[in-house]
Structures are given as C-alpha cells and as structure tokens.
C-alpha cells in the first residue's frame, strides 16, 4: 500500500481547482490493527514483546546493563532482596560446595567481617591469585574456573574495585556478575539474532517464492529443486555443517547461518500464494491495463500476501530465538565473550550440579516469557490479518 502511495496525490487534499472532499478511509492494515486491539491476549502479548524490544534497545544503546561484565557481587552471590544478614541460602550453599575452599572462605569471611568491607575489597584483588594455585593442587575440578578468574582478573583489576555485594537481587554467576544484567544482555543477543536472522530468511524466502510462484515454468522448477535440496538435509546438521565451514564465531555468522538455512518454509508458502493470486481477476485486470510483470508481482500481489509474510516472519523469529539458544548451548553459537540465553544455559548446566539455580531460572524465565508472548502475538496477528474475517468487520 505504502509502496505506491507516492505515485498518488495525498489523501489530505491535492490543491486542485475544485473542492476535493477530505476523507481518509481505514485501509486493511488499519482494520487489522483495530481487530488486534480488540484481542486482549494479543494485546498483552504485544505489550510484553514491546517491553522486551524496548529493553534490548536500551541495552544495545548502552543505557542499561552496559556494565553487565562487572563483577559486582561475590562468586555465585545468591539471589535475595532482603540482604545478606538474613541470608538462608548462604550457609546451605556453602556446605553444599565445601570443595571450593577459597570461595567459601571469602563468603564466610565477608559475611562475618562486615565493618571492614573496604579492607577486604582491597585484599580481594590478590586473594584469588594467592588462593588459586594453593587450592588448585587440592581440588582439581575447579582448576579451570580459577584460570578463568585469573584471566578476567586483568580487566577487573584495572579499575579500582569497590565492595562486592554478598547477595544480589537476582543472584550472581560464578564471577559474581549480576544475573539480571546478564539476562538483559543475553536477551539483547538472542532477540537481535532471532529478528535479524528471521528478516534475512524472510527476505530470501519471499523473493524466491514470489519468483517461483509468479514465473512458473523452468524458473519454478529450478527454484523448487534448490528448495528440495535444502529441505532434504536435516536442519540441525545443515547448521552444524555451515557453522563448521565458516569457522569464525560471531553474531553475524550465526545470523547468516540461520538466515541461509531457514528460508524454506516461507518460500513454499509464498510460492503457493503467488500461484493462487496470479490467476485472480485483479491481477488479470492489472495485466489488461498494461502493468508490467514486476509491477504485478510487487505492487499488486505483494500487498495482498504481505500478511502471510508478516505472520511467517513472526513465527520465524520465535523459531530462530530457540535455534540460537540451542546453537549457543551446544557451543556453535555466539562466541564466549558474548552472553546470550544459550550461553547462560550452557554455564548453568555445570552450576546446577552445585545447586546454583538462579542463572538457569533467569535465562529460562526470560526466554519462556518472550517466546510464549511472541507465539500468542503471532496467533493474534494471524487472526487479525485473516482475510476470511474481513466480511465481519466490513459491513
């Protein structure tokens, strides 16, 4: 609709010699929006999804969660809102993880010697370095953790350290980073990857589908062959193969992988839609007035199938968010220095043995909320855009 609005006089009155009545009719998108507005579940989902989008926009622009990597709390700071004094999980967690000597010692010591927190803060810079090798010989399983800590110590030590909190409202990870901020940052990665990959896949699928469906003949045959090759390989294997070939890890790589492998479903749908619409009378009428093939494809048919594209896009976003989580979980996804829901779940896998459930809970809750809301929104969108319901609102 908006594509060729430029070719026409503005609805708000061309300055002609005659009296032109002012009138703006609700287009089909406006009507669909009105129907969506009447759908309570759809609107709640829309608000949730919008809230997530605002959140990741803020985090991407650095307004919130910029310092997500800062180690603000003690290692595995337990989640609580009330503070360390009435901390019930502290001792429990400590006894459960008796093996990790230095950490436990720090926690214990800190909670007892509260007044001299600033002293401890100064000490702590050296503490893991000293304690690390000492305990490394005794407790093997934590050796790599200690190495990690040492590795990150360089950056952590550069800035003057302030006091680490003993508990955090949403808990801390094994380096004492705030799980809430980490989740926000992880959402940014996961949702961005999901949306960008879905846009890429939708663009490829729609373009090829439109070509195949509209042109028919050998173009259709060739594209169908291409489609069949892609869809005959198990999806996850294809992703792993591409991931292995591309070698370098990064967000753009995973977007590319998902986009290049995920276009098949929308291709099939859009191809079918174009085949159906090609024979419709309004397209024949466009042909009769001399509209070119490109014009018929993109100006006449595309607006009429755009609701299918939108719904598919929405479905793909959900699918790709989940795919990114799985890939990152398996270690094929985003690089280690980037946090995503998948890498959080990957970390949580080991933590769970230690009883540190909060990172898993945070990532899972955020993902479940967004995916559920997005899926419900997709359903509501489909209902609102379904042309079959048009008659009910039309007259």
């Amino acid at each position: 609709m908006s594509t060729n609005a430029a070719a026409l006089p503005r609805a708000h009155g061309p300055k002609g010699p005659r009296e032109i009545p002012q009138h703006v009719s609700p287009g089909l998108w406006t009507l669909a929006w009105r129907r969506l507005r009447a759908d309570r579940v759809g609107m709640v989902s829309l608000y949730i999804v919008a809230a997530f989008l605002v959140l990741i926009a803020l985090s991407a622009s650095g307004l919130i969660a910029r310092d997500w990597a800062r180690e603000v709390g003690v290692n595995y700071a337990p989640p609580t809102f009330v503070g360390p004094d009435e901390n019930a999980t502290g001792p429990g967690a400590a006894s459960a993880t008796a093996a990790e000597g230095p950490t436990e010692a720090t926690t214990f010591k800190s909670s007892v010697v509260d007044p001299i927190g600033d002293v401890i803060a100064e000490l702590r810079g050296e503490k893991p370095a000293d304690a690390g090798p000492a305990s490394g010989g005794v407790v093997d399983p934590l050796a790599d953790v200690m190495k990690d800590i040492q590795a990150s110590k360089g950056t952590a030590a550069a800035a003057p350290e302030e006091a680490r909190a003993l508990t955090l409202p949403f808990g801390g990870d094994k380096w004492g980073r705030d799980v809430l901020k980490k989740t926000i940052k992880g959402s940014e990665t996961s949702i961005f990857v999901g949306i960008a990959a879905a846009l890429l896949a939708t663009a490829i699928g729609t373009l090829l589908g439109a070509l195949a469906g509209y042109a028919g003949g050998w173009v259709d045959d060739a594209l169908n062959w291409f489609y069949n090759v892609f869809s005959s390989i198990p999806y996850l294997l294809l992703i792993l193969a591409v991931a292995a070939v591309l070698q370098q890890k990064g967000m753009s790589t995973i977007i590319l992988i998902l986009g290049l492998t995920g276009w098949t479903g929308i291709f099939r749908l859009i191809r079918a839609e174009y085949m159906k619409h090609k024979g419709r009378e309004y397209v024949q009428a466009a042909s009769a007035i001399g509209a070119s093939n490109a014009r018929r494809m993109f100006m006449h048919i595309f607006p009429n199938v755009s609701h299918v594209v939108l719904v598919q896009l929405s479905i793909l976003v959900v699918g790709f968010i989940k795919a990114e989580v799985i890939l990152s979980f398996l270690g094929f996804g985003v690089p280690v220095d980037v946090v995503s829901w998948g890498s959080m779940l990957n970390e949580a896998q080991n933590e769970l043995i230690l009883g540190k459930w909060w990172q898993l809970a945070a990532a899972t809750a955020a993902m479940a909320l967004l995916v559920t809301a997005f899926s419900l929104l997709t359903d509501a969108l489909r209902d609102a855009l379904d042309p079959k319901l048009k008659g009910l609102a039309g007259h």
Partner: protein
Amino acid sequence: MKQTDRMEGDPLVSVRNLRVSFRLDRHNVFDAVRGISFDIPRNETLALVGESGSGKSVTALAILGLLPPENSIVHPGGEIVYGGRNVAGLPQRELRKLRGADISMIFQEPMTSLNPVFTVGYQLEEVLRLHRGLKGAAARKRSIELLEEVGIPDPSFKIDAFPSQMSGGQQQRVMIAMAIACEPKLLIADEPTTALDVTIQKQILELIAQLQRRHQMSVLFITHDLAVVGEIADRVVVMRNGEIREQGPAKAIFEAPQDAYTKALLQCRPRLDRRPTRLPVIDDYMAAGHHGPAHMEERARGVAAADPVILDVRNLSKSFWSREGLFGKREFKAVSNVSFRLHKGRTLGLVGESGSGKTTVGLTVMRLHEATGGEVLFEGKDILKMSEAEFMSYKRRIQIIFQNPYASLNPRFTVGQILTEPMLIHGIGATTQERAELAFEMLAKVGLPEVSFYKYPHEFSGGQRQRIAIARCLTLKPDILICDESVSALDVSVQAQVLNLLADLQDEFKLSYIFISHDLAVVKYISDEVMVMSDGELVEMAGSDEIYRAPKQPYTQRLLSAIPRGWQPAARSA
C-alpha cells in the same frame, strides 16, 4: 396444476414476528430480519423473493435452526410454529430430529454441499441410516430408487460415482435426492438453480415442481429471480432489507403488484419482448416525486451494412494442454476456428453455456491468453502477431470488465490508486494532479461521489464496485470494451443501473462492446448482434432481434426455450 385459490387449512409453518440480528463486533448489531410474518401453506410452493441483503436466506436458516449460534440473535417474541409448537427456541437435539426428516434443505452450490471424498451412494445411505434406520442392501436399494426419481441416468451405476464425476446439474439432483430421501413435509430450496446453466435450471425447476406434486410437500423456494418464481410458485413473499414488502398469490403479485418495490423488481429486469432506451431502476418507483420510469421508448438495435468494422477475428483457436502420463499431453480445444466481426459503436453479444469457450474468446482477443491460431485484425492490423512493445498502444484500446467486482479490484489499493494506475502506466496525464482530475471526472461519469477516490473497494457494494471497474477502463479511453459476465453477479435492480450506464457510455463515446453472458435476456437487451457458442465452436450468429425471433440452429432453439418466461397466465390456467 394446483389450485392456488383453494381454501387453506392450517398452514404447515407459521412464521410470526420473526426478528434476527447479527452481532458484528462488541458494539454493533445488524438487524437482518426485522419482524416478519408469513405462512407456508401445506402442499404448495411459496417463493421468498428478494435481492442480496433482504434477509431471505437468514429466514430459511432460522426456520431450520441453522443460524450460527455464536453471533446471531433470534429475538424472543417471534414464533416459528411447526406442527402446533414453536420451534424457534428448541434445543439443537430436538431440531436435529426435525431437520432431514420433516424439513430439509438444498443449497445454491451443489459442488460444496456434497462431500467430495465419499460416493453419492454413501452420502445418500447415510441420510437413510440416520433418519430411517435403513441399512445395507435396503438402504442401497432405496438410494437407487431416489436417484432414479430425480432423473439420474443409469442410477445403479452412478450410485458409486464420486461427486466430482458428475456434472453440476447431476450434483444438484443428488442434493435433491438427499433432501427428499425422508419424504420431508417441507423442502427449502435456497437459490438452487443460480449456479446452473439456463437449460439445466429449467430441468431442475421442473423436477422440483414434479416432486412437490408427487410427494405432497410444501416448498419454500428462495430466489432473487422473479422470472424463475413465476414458473413454479403458488404464493410469493417479496422481501427487502429484512422486511416483507408484499405477499400474496403469485397471480396477484405478477398481475397487480401493489408495492412500488415489487413493481420495480418486475420491471427492471430486461425482457425478451421489449427494449426500452433505459431500463427502469428501483429509484424510478421508490423515490418520492418519481412517477414511473422515463425513456421507455424502444431502442433500435442492429448492425447496418455501413457500420465500419473495428475488430475482425478470423479462425481464432485456443487450446489448452493437460499433462497426461509421463510424457503425454492432451489437447483441449477451448476455442476452435471462431470468426466474427465487431462493428464500431455496436455491441456483439456472446452467449453459451459454461464451458462453451466464450470467456476464452474474450481473453484471447485481448491477448490475456495466447492464441493457438488465427488472426485478430484491429483496424486492419493483426494484434496477435505484434511484439509486446508494439501491442502496448493497442492494449489501451481494448479493455475488459470482469464478472466478479469483488475479485477484480485490488483490495489493497484505494479507488484513487486503482483509477490513476492505468493512466500512469500509459502516460496519460502529465502530472499526478492531472491524472487525479481525470479520475474524478471518470467517477462522475459512472455516477460515484468524489469522496470514493479515497476509499477502498471493500467499502462499496457490488454494483458500485462494477462502476469502479468500468471507470478504470474508461480512464484509458478504450475503443473496445469486453464485458465478461459483467452484470451476472449483480442484483437485478443494480444490473439495470449498470446496463443503463453501459448504454449511455456507448452513446457518448461510441464504444464497441463484446458482451459475454449466459443470461440471454440481458444479451438480447444490450446487443446489436448475437453470437452463440457451444463447445468452443460458433453455432450461430445473427442480428439480436432475428436470432431470438427465428433461431436457425437446434442448439440455439434449445437455449432460447429454456429462458424462464416469468408469469404466464395462459400456461397456468391450462
């Protein structure tokens, strides 16, 4: 014939003060039926006549209790009395006993009413099993009897056929067989012949009339077509906008209509025996200050020898190939060797039953289909041989108006976009402003307000949409307009308006029309010459008065004799 004026006992069904509303959304309610009362007498045919939106089908569904419960409201206070009790508020279980056994219904589209994955025999036997308890061989025997009764040839063989293996007429016969399987007391027929060709329509009407007499049923016949009603109805109820305008015996309705709307309905349909300059429209009767239609004098039609030929079609052929087997192809000749001439400023009517190739002729002539053979000479030049670029300037001059105004306008475009796009493509009008001015001019020409420019097609009624489609063609200032069933989907009153518009435009712009239709009365009205097609071949071509007066070919004779004649007192009294 039954006596229409016999003493009536108590009626089979009494509808009293029936009101039905539909919930559109949370706030709006649409009153589809606004308090109507009528009786369906025993052993007679009652016709419920009205245009789209009159509430006639809703009334039938209300009698059957088939209204969608989620958005329809049958207002309490109304009554539908059948067999001494009010069935309006009965629970579904009770209603189901009535449906099929006592009251049954046949619908407009037999193709969608029959289940395509079961044989017709299975579907018939299912009805008998559910309502009559017949099983196995007994059910099959009864099914064959029923198929025989509704005139299916070779019923013991056809009983195992799937619906797709039957023609539309046969499918409708199967529907009727299912409807009468349990000897219902009332048969509701909702536009049962609208989707059928005129010759099949005649057979189905005769069948319904015959069955009604034989089984002593009452028939509630719902239609928009008064001509059909005249042939079979004993009593007529005329509805408009959910209200009854007039009801009475058929004789009274046809010979002395009291209501202005009934009069208008009777007059605005083209007739075979008259051709007024303008067809009367509803407003001629309904609007205050009007006293009957004007311009009722006869319009002369016909082609004079001196009329220049604008389009000369020679031996036009069009075949479609369907793949068969691995490598095989089967040719289907949609049009074979059709030749005709179209004279400037005249109308060539093209009639034939569905599948006769008349639409293919129209599409091939303007190169929307690629011809298999033949020539189309437009002012002496063969447009079929032209390159796409050469043809572009001719494309503008041949335009087409399609049948379905709901499908031929892009729903995502505003009317302004629809009207200015052709001009943009063909470089008519230098600026956007100029093109908009032209579009406003065309809107005025087809009688739509200027505000339409900003609206979307879905905001218009069928007739208005067809005007928009006509305006779109006019923006290109064409010489030839192909009207492909352009008025077939419209209500009779709207049809009259569009036909008048087409006639006016022809007078003003000297347009030449190829008017394709299955409706012989409409073709007779609008055409100078008529061409009859059957199975892709030209059967007969002659002046329109001549062909209706003295058809030469047996096919044409058969076609013409099937036209519903409306009310014919002579035939009734026989």
